[in-house]
């Protein structure tokens, strides 16, 4: 039987709608976050965000569903799946905030109309988003919604890959969705984790994150094509050091990186590049840098993609994977100009211009609230 590989993708982020536009934009200067004003009775809060390109925060319900449904369509088309193949496919969604943006809009409208309103009366079923995406495209296979905060869609890929590898389905559609919502914006504001000046992961001037939006979809299916990107190994572990931060000594980050390498049957020196999680928060970058140092005697090139798209939370797994693979397929390792040009206090340096990249084996790391740590090893070479 052929091994599962990545057959096609769809993507909409702050960089653009469509995978090609997103990859083009990774060669351009970093975008600037825009402050989204949220009014409370006492004050007006400006939440820095990188919203979906071409989609202002208007008509929230239509905006949400149209963007999410479109990327699944783009991925299906890119993979060339037939209607019958789509029907039998699994849909595995990873998200942190589900369709709460829609529920917020409905609740706010009901309150404004003077109704005796209660939240989540229009929908309290967490599976509605996946159900609606599945129904919109005629998918009838297994459906999972995985909610593990910022690792959600990376974990979704792990299970999608297993569903294909075990022969339960021929294709799986991995989806990541994260759309701006007020509770998430105010929650991160209350944690003092937002930075209005953009994300600077591992940089001495790192000061927090930018809220990012993304709808992303990836088709996983059996392929005998040589050189296609595929998931070679993975690991997910629970870090009980703290609910909102990894152990700063790096030990739990190192554990999940090592386990993914072991699952892939690789030694650290065989990794050609790392896509770091890089949330630009003081403690999490410290833990991630320490974890990488514990595993890699000589650190391979490291990149971070959140400066381009913001932190897309539950969607960042599949979103950043699509961006990384897209760059690699064009023969480049991503760069973040102006960020971490020199080794920082964490002794990490990020490329300043896209670097030529041969096919190889790469590690992508993701860490989330709830102590959820995930590492993926992907390859487009043996």
């Amino acid at each position, binding site marked *: 039987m052929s091994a599962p590989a990545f057959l096609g993708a769809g993507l909409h982020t702050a960089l653009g709608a469509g995978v090609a536009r997103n990859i083009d934009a990774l060669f351009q200067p970093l975008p600037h976050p825009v402050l989204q004003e949220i009014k409370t009775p006492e004050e007006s809060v400006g939440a820095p965000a990188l919203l979906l390109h071409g989609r202002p925060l208007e008509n929230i319900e239509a905006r949400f569903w149209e963007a999410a449904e479109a990327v699944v369509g783009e991925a299906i088309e890119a993979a060339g799946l037939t209607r019958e193949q789509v029907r039998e496919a699994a849909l595995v969604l990873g998200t942190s905030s589900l369709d709460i943006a829609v529920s917020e809009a409905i609740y706010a409208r009901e309150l404004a109309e003077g109704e005796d309103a209660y939240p989540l009366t229009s929908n309290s079923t*967490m599976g509605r988003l996946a159900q609606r995406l599945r*129904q919109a495209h005629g998918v009838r296979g297994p*459906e999972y919604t995985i909610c593990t905060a910022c690792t959600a869609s990376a974990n979704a890929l792990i299970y999608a890959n297993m569903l294909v590898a075990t022969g339960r389905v021929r294709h799986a559609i991995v989806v990541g969705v994260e759309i701006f919502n007020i509770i998430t914006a105010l929650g991160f504001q209350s944690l003092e984790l937002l930075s209005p000046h953009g994300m600077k992961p591992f940089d001495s001037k790192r000061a927090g994150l930018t809220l990012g939006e993304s709808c992303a979809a990836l088709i996983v299916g059996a392929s005998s094509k040589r050189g296609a990107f595929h998931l070679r190994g993975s690991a997910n572990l629970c870090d009980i050091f703290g609910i909102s931060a990894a152990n700063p000594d790096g030990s739990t980050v190192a554990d999940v990186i090592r386990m993914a390498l072991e699952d892939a049957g690789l030694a650290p020196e065989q990794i050609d590049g790392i896509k770091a999680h890089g949330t630009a928060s003081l403690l999490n970058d410290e833990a991630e840098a320490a974890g990488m140092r514990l595993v890699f005697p000589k650190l391979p090139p490291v990149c971070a993609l959140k400066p381009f798209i913001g932190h897309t939370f539950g969607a960042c797994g599949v979103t950043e994977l699509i961006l990384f693979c897209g760059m690699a397929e064009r023969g480049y390792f991503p760069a973040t100009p102006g960020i971490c040009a020199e080794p920082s206090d964490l002794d990490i340096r990020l490329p300043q211009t896209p670097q030529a990249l041969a096919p190889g084996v790469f590690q992508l790391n993701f860490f989330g609230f709830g102590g959820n740590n995930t590492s993926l090893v992907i390859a487009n070479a043996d």
Partner: protein
Amino acid sequence: MPIEITVRAHGDYYAPVEGAPPDVRELSKQTLGKQVRRVGRFIQLALIGAARCVGTETPPAHTGIYMSSRRGDLETNLEVLEQFFKHGHTPKPLNFINTVSNASCYYVARHFGLHGRSCFVTGVCFSFEMALQAALLDMQAGVVRSALVGGLDTVAAPLEIDRRRLGLNAQTPVGEASHWLWLEARAPAPGETTLEAVEAFADRDALAAWLKQQSFAPEKTLLAEGQYLDPADARALRGETALTRAFAYRESLAYYDGQAGAALGAYRATADLDGTALAHINGDAEGRFAAIVARRSA
């Protein structure tokens, strides 16, 4: 040789709810031996169910946690939404962090000192089945050798509004439950239950074809009808499979979403079933199906 998955233990919390949802802090303290502070009822109930499942045992540190719920920690999410949209208060940091669904997995892992897999799975009708399938996939792949799989559904006050959310009429009894299984990748001892399969099907034809392949002996197989299975589909399945021995486990339960989570515990707790299989079939309104197959070793 395929990896066998044995159900080492199960544990449940179940209570019908009338009026206000119960305060479970004292029960949590009694069950866990200590008070878990600054968490809501959802997380308390997750801990109670998991603690009842493992009893006096200590799961190995590499044990994975798989939790499922159709609505997650509804009370915490309602509180945060009402506080801002109705009263203008921004979320408190810990309240916000506890809105992430896998916070419950974290607290269970922390209580038992676990650092294995951690996964929260939800779905419209098959939340528990998909969480169980995720555990089965990991165990059959050899990635996980011990797993706690939980299904948890709670209600929120006021109940008349929550019944509206659930699409229930005012007379329908509602309840809360936290069902847990402890799975181990090992061969069963005599009388122990093994988890053989968890599968999803696009339509009834696919389910029927799969059931036919399983070669169930009707006299040694119990058929359990899941919560969302259409009665017409249930009748058709009984006719097509000749599985006429019913396993009824839901009759006395008030409404809550993840009743499938109760099935294996109830089967495991039923005497005189050695050598008997359980086929649990659930369905959704779209004509899709999910099956769980377990067997009591002779």
